[in-house]
């Protein structure tokens, strides 16, 4: 059973279509990457899930129930455009935001104290927000997003403004939250962190969902049967010894070790490549090139923008 189901959701702003019949399903206790170029419609979708704005068509179900006002208590949202009241004390402000998420004052104080201790920022409780650095403010912001222990967490570019140490701290927290049962929607342009954290993704481009599935499956399906080959003791033209159906896409030489990237036809495998080359050179290494999410993102979006969405399906 999916925790969140988005069913054929469309949203228009006057002449602009922000979302066009987008459907996604998010499994409980997973980390779901919501990807897409700037202006693709991700933020609109997130706002619809948060009931900040409503869809023109389609529906959103949280645990199989149509979204209703009380559902905001089950969702924690860290927007990309985020900030705090500068003149307000940190603790008071965190308390206010937690209470707006339906927590009682008593519970909120206890939970906040716990998180402040965990992040070692107890001493900031009475400080004004404007006295904190940007990274410190982000920590407070993270805490107020998760303090009411929502079932569904939505992080929009959560790592911006953090140094690498704090990025790791945050990643660990996100993984910990999932382990404890939360489901996480994660929107970012940082593809490395998508590969690291996400179980499933959806790629939205120009209001349309152009790709979705598990990260593993997507990567698998985007493999192009390309191999990276390391060899030595062969100074001749590699192309002359390769099977003509093999495509040499890159070749370089570093300290006598040659590296070549070869794309094989569908019916061929790495053994064919090795058999082809073994008589001529001593091979030191062979590995399959698995496309990064970054590459998949770029090729998918470009293919779509060139008005040829069918090429995606062929892939």
């Amino acid at each position, binding site marked *: 059973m999916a925790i969140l189901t988005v069913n054929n959701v469309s949203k228009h702003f006057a002449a602009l279509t922000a979302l066009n019949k987008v459907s996604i399903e998010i499994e409980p206790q997973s980390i779901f990457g919501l990807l897409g170029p700037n202006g693709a419609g991700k933020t609109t979708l997130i*706002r619809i899930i948060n009931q*900040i*704005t*409503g869809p023109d068509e389609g529906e959103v179900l949280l645990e199989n129930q149509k979204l209703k006002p009380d559902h905001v208590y089950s969702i924690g*949202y*860290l927007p990309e*455009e985020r*900030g705090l009241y500068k003149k307000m004390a940190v603790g008071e402000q965190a308390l206010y935001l937690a209470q*707006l998420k339906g927590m009682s004052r008593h519970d909120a104080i206890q939970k906040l104290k716990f998180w402040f201790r965990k992040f070692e920022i107890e001493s900031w409780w009475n400080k004004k927000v404007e006295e904190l650095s940007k990274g410190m403010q982000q920590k407070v912001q993270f805490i107020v997003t998760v303090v009411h222990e929502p079932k569904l967490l939505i992080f929009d570019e959560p790592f911006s403004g953090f140094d690498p140490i704090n990025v790791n701290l945050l990643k660990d927290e996100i993984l910990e939250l999932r382990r404890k049962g939360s489901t996480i929607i994660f929107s970012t342009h940082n593809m490395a962190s998508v590969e690291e954290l996400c179980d499933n993704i959806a790629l939205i481009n120009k209001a349309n969902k152009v790709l979705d599935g598990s990260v593993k499956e997507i990567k698998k399906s985007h493999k192009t049967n390309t191999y990276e080959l390391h060899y030595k003791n062969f100074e001749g033209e590699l192309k002359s010894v390769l099977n003509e159906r093999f495509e040499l896409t890159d070749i370089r030489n570093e300290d006598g070790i040659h590296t070549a990237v070869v794309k094989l036809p569908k019916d061929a495998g790495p053994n064919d490549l090795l058999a082809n080359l073994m008589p001529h050179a001593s091979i030191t290494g062979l590995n399959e090139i698995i496309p990064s999410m970054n590459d998949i993102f770029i090729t998918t979006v470009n293919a779509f923008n060139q008005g040829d969405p069918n090429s995606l399906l062929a892939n």
Partner: protein
Amino acid sequence: MNKIFLIIRREYLTRVRKRSFIVMTVLGPILMAAIFVIPIYFATMQDEKRVIHVVDETGLFITKFSNNDNYIFIPQYTDLETAKKTLKQTEGYALLYIPRTELNVPSQAMLYSDKQPSLNLTGYISGVMNREIEKQKLAAEIRHQIRLSTPGYEVAADSAADNLMSETILKNIKTNVNIITYKIEEGGIEKKSSTEANMIVGMVASLMIYMFIFMYGSLVMRGVIEEKTNRIVEVIVSSVKPFQLMLGKVIGVALVGLTQFLLWVVFTAILVGGFQQAFPEKFKMPSAQEKFVTNPQMQPQNIKTETTANLQADTGNETANQILEAVSSINFPVMIIAFIFFFIGGYLLYGALFAGIGSAVDNEADTQQFMLPVTVPLIFAIVMMQYVINNPEGPLSWWLSMIPFTSPVIMMIRIPFGVPYGQLALSAGLLIAGFLATTWVAAKIYRTGILMYGKKVNYAELWKWIRYKG
């Protein structure tokens, strides 16, 4: 509902704890008390006495100028040039020169001074001279009449008897007409009323509403802009509806305003009261308001006899009592209830619009283009104030007191002159409808505006936002 309460609480607490609020709350009454107290203080303060030299070629006026608290008149029996020199040497304030004229009816005098002489002084001088000339003319007329009625009887050119007679006549014919207006109420009860008192009560009330709308309306606007530029707004609207956030802010700020207003009234009363206790003698003379505080037991009849006995007496005491009586003719329960209603209603109507404007822009500098249509009706109402005072029952006054955008200001002016309950109810109903309408429009703009960054917004864009669904 609970969330709106949380928002109102935050808006209220963060504002009343601000240093600027505390400073304004303390300074406001001091300033207001100063407005009452300082003029009184200065009015009763002993001024430095100014010396006026008088050269009177006619010899008619030289003894008539009497010294007072502010001026000493010194006769100079020399020619003008010498007197000018003397003035310089003795550092006198001014030199009054009354030249002899052909017909011996001087109508001109020159005042030489190295400073611009005060209106007070020139007024006093011309008053003295006018009175003296009138007296002379009257005495001449009396002599003429005597000569005509008793032929052969010669009268001395300037007999003391004539002068005394003319003086008495002048005194006796001096009159001071006070028009006391009576308002006939239903049931035939007549009440003394005073247009001036009605005017003052109405103007004070409507100016207060006008100021309150502007001060606290722009506070709402700045609050919205602050939330937008802080980028906290999206965090909050993921927990509450934008409408709740807007309404909570408008109401929270209203409570701040009411708190400040109440504290001002209380502190001002304490300060003025304290000053009165400390210096009771300062409050004996000038304005009417103080008068019925210091002489509450004075009976109107006493003043009547007093004023007839002394025609020259200041009529202030009577005015004070008239005001007191006239003010009591205003229907105060209606006035107070209406004031509170239009005060809050007007603020809510405009507060929502101010919130809408704040949401549509990225910083305060961009608010100008949207502020204009909001402020024009308010300023128009203030401009029309004088007209409404003159024609409280006129058709324009009627319409202005019905249209929700001007009614809070205009109705307050009309109420002291008496407004039928039916009209009050209609105006109040329209104000509530107007408030609901502006809040609805503002909420539509607000909902879209708060999440819109870095976009120059124009009216066409706002119109689009109003029409967006859900």
